[in-house]
């Protein structure tokens, strides 16, 4: 019953005119950037963060969240119609979605993707509402030692689930942790790694790094390849899926939702991993795997449901533990801190209207998304004909304005420039930047909790293994690490990512 009253509170918050408006704005923007290849939710949220200063925190977070899950819907449109992933999490949708489009069944694929996503979004909202309170209660009992172990687990998982070489992922984590150390030391005030620059005393802003790597770095890399969108847009055809389509896909939607919800919670998970895993699963259990890649509707329904479910359940660790599991969530943590909210289990008890308002807004947002994506599909298709050469200077300018207005600091823009170069190098060197961003956010928290734990235990390092919760978390982390180092599992992991 508590759940119902909580949800009621949430809907009261989410359904105020202002919040409905911002929710709509969020999902609209999310769909827009989802449809457009070359700009993702990380850069968009970073860009818009300064614009949310004036808003009440609830509205700001509702809008920013909408951008993330809205992008999951928009991404599928581009994938199906043009065979380009509008969003990274729609890569696998291209395979069967575009094949369906070539058979003149784009409309059915789009409808299944949108309906599957809506179903997944609804389920994920419920999962979030049910799973979050007990987790937060558990987290309230965490001391510094548990928090430290939890973050270790988070970072290990980020390594395990990152794509590409393990060594590189570990390097990115360490680099991220080090970048997080820049600035005045919390306990003693001593400047570290500031190289005598007063502007670095407060540390390097997370938005600056995210914008540099995901904004500028990606623009440079995109420009190296000529615009690929000349392949032509497939006609949509009838939006109504046949009964055979519906029959074939409901199982896939269910499986995708379940898998996506579970993977979204894991550190390093989220929408991207969920969609890949769901595609692999559908292919594995299909009676006739050879149909995949040639327009199997399950190959659209599964991943599209999974990425939306994953996008939403990835809010669970952030809202309950204060632990971001992917770059977008790391930005959400940043957004909360800008608005004076310390992310963690206390959010739910101290600001219930914020927590439940966000949860409820997700369902509202999903409803908007179905409406936006199905009847209005024509508008999004038109947008696809806007060439990248007109888009990227605008993205660049707004990114600059966004970074500058965070602190009214031109130095921040200069720093973002350096991270843009770094981000470009990462792309060239095939290094996944997500672990770096997660580590950047976790770094300062980790150090603080480590030092606090050590002070409380008077310098006795066994505190991490004598407290049962902490020990449990560390064991899970160690087990994960051992698993990926084992050659057999490693091979399988590589296979899974090659799909």
């Amino acid at each position, binding site marked *: 019953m508590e759940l119902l009253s909580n949800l009621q509170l949430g809907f009261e918050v989410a359904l105020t005119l202002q919040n409905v408006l911002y929710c709509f704005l969020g999902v609209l923007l999310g769909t827009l950037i989802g449809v457009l290849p070359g700009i993702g939710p990380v850069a968009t949220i970073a860009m818009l963060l*300064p*614009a949310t200063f*004036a808003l009440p925190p609830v509205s700001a977070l509702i809008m920013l969240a909408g951008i993330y899950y809205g992008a999951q819907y928009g991404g599928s449109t581009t994938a199906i119609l043009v065979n380009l992933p509008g969003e990274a999490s729609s890569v696998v949708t291209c395979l069967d979605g575009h094949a369906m489009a070539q058979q003149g069944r784009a409309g059915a694929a789009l409808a299944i993707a949108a309906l599957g996503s809506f179903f997944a979004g609804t389920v994920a909202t419920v999962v979030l509402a049910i799973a979050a309170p007990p987790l937060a209660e558990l987290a309230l009992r965490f001391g510094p030692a548990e928090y430290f172990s939890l973050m270790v687990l988070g970072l290990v998982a980020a390594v395990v689930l990152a794509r590409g070489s393990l*060594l*590189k992922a*570990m*390097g990115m984590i*360490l*680099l991220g*942790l*080090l970048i997080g*150390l820049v600035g005045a*030391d919390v*306990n*003693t005030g*001593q400047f*570290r*790694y500031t190289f005598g620059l007063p502007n670095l005393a407060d540390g390097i802003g997370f938005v600056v790094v995210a914008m540099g790597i995901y904004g*500028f770095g990606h*623009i*440079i890399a995109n*420009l*190296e390849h*000529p*615009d690929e969108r000349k392949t032509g847009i497939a006609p949509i055809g009838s939006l109504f899926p046949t009964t055979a389509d519906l029959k074939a896909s409901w199982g896939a939607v269910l499986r995708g939702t379940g898998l996506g919800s579970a993977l979204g919670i894991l550190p390093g998970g989220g929408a991207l991993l969920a969609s890949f895993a769901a595609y692999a699963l559908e292919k594995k259990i299909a009676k006739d795997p050879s149909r995949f890649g040639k327009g199997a509707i399950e190959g659209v329904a599964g991943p599209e449901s999974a990425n939306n479910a994953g996008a939403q359940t990835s809010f669970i660790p952030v809202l309950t533990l204060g632990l971001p599991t992917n770059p977008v969530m790391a930005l959400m943590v940043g957004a909360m801190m800008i608005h004076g909210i310390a992310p963690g289990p206390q959010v739910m008890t101290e600001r219930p209207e914020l927590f439940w308002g966000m949860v409820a807004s997700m369902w509202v947002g999903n409803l908007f998304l179905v409406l936006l994506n199905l009847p209005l599909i024509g508008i999004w298709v038109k947008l696809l004909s806007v*060439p*990248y*050469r*007109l888009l*990227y*200077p*605008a993205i*660049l*300018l707004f990114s*600059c*304005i966004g970074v*500058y*207005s965070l602190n*009214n600091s*031109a*130095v921040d*823009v*200069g720093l*973002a*420039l350096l991270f*843009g*170069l770094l981000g*470009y*190098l990462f792309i*060239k*060197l095939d290094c996944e930047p997500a672990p770096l961003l997660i580590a950047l956010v976790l770094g300062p928290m980790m*150090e603080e909790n*480590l*030092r606090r734990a*050590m*002070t409380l235990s008077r*310098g006795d390092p066994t505190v991490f293994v004598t407290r049962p919760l902490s020990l449990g978390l560390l064991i899970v982390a160690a087990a994960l690490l051992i698993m990926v180092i084992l050659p057999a599992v490693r091979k399988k992991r590589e296979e899974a990512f090659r799909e």
Partner: protein
Amino acid sequence: MLFLFFGGVAAWVARDYPMGSAVRMGPGYFPLVLGVLLALLGLAACIRGLGIKGEHIESVRFRPLLLILGSVGVFATAIEHAGIIATTILTVVGAAAASPESRPREVIVLVIVLLALAVGVFTYALGLPFKLMPG
């Protein structure tokens, strides 16, 4: 070779660690541990990188790299002195020059549209503290 970059970064960071290695959790403790770890990792990456020959990096194209970073740099240096109007024009034109597909007429239209947005939305509607004109 491909990993040398990391090795370099790691070594450079590790060199920075003499900042107080107090074991009783001074400000240098955490950086020290991380620096050493990253240096070791960089070393491992270098060794492995030497082992695997022939993994070559896709060649770097300098035009987008320099022009994009350059226009961001222009924004950073100009925004506080030249005002939002001049800065927008310079940044957008600079960025547009990075793509071989840009066409002059489109760029002019783009500049005008973005100028209207930068001034109208960001400066007036959102109240960001930009000067319009130099000075």
